[in-house]
């Protein structure tokens, strides 16, 4: 694992940015999907291409590209089996953002699920954090 870069070049900073971009574009995509749900009844609707009729989707696309660029930087320096589970903090952030911004509900089961995701992240990230402290 090679991650001695400082500032924005640090792969852990890039990982955090990637998570922020993913959370933001998922919420924007949902706004776009809501807006275009009424035109999504054609035979090719499962491809999601009708979503391109929404401006929200076009706002989301640059964030998708940015998340990919930051993620590629992460992949250059951190093992996939470590980086990918940590990046899954979006599974806690996206439902929380959906609750705050879109008004979607979080019941007890969903809350437990989010808590387990965060616990799993802590288990994965702890040895990595220890390693970072030693370096």
């Amino acid at each position, binding site marked *: 694992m090679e991650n001695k870069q400082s500032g924005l070049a640090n792969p852990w900073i890039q990982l955090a940015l990637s998570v922020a971009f993913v959370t933001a574009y*998922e*919420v924007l*995509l*949902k706004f*776009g*999907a809501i807006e*275009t*749900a009424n035109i*999504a009844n054609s035979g090719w*609707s*499962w*491809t*999601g*291409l*009708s*979503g391109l009729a929404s401006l929200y*989707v076009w706002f989301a696309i640059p964030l*998708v590209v940015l998340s*990919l660029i930051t*993620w*590629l930087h992460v*992949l*250059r320096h951190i*093992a*996939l*089996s*470590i980086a*990918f*589970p940590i990046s*899954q903090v*979006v*599974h806690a952030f*996206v*439902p929380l953002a*959906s*609750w705050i911004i*879109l008004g*979607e509900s*979080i*019941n*007890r*089961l*969903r809350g*437990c*699920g*989010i*808590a*387990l*995701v*965060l*616990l*799993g*992240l*802590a*288990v*994965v*990230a*702890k*040895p990595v954090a220890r390693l970072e402290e030693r370096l």
Partner: protein
Amino acid sequence: MTPISFVIVLIALATVVAGQLVLKKAMDIFNTVGHRHFDFLRPFALGIFLMTVQFFLNLGLLQRYDLSFIYPFQGLSVIMIAIAAAVVLREKLTMQLTIGSALISIGIVLVSMS
């Protein structure tokens, strides 16, 4: 959830796993030979293609279901990618990493069930 949407979810899941593995491979090649060699371009292009397919399938699913319901299905990819990275890329899979990945996957399944 209808059978067709379940199949679409599975295809989206497979493209995420394959896409991440191929992109990681491309970046490993990039680290080894540098950007002046084009050896990394083929897996890189394939990875981008797979991620694009996944993007549009996900958008199609979002048009029908709540974001907080659909998105967590992709979470199953956590344990799948951890195992695939160990098998295909020969990354070290520790017990702690396995337990952590499994907890994340279970948590995501719970979120999906709610």
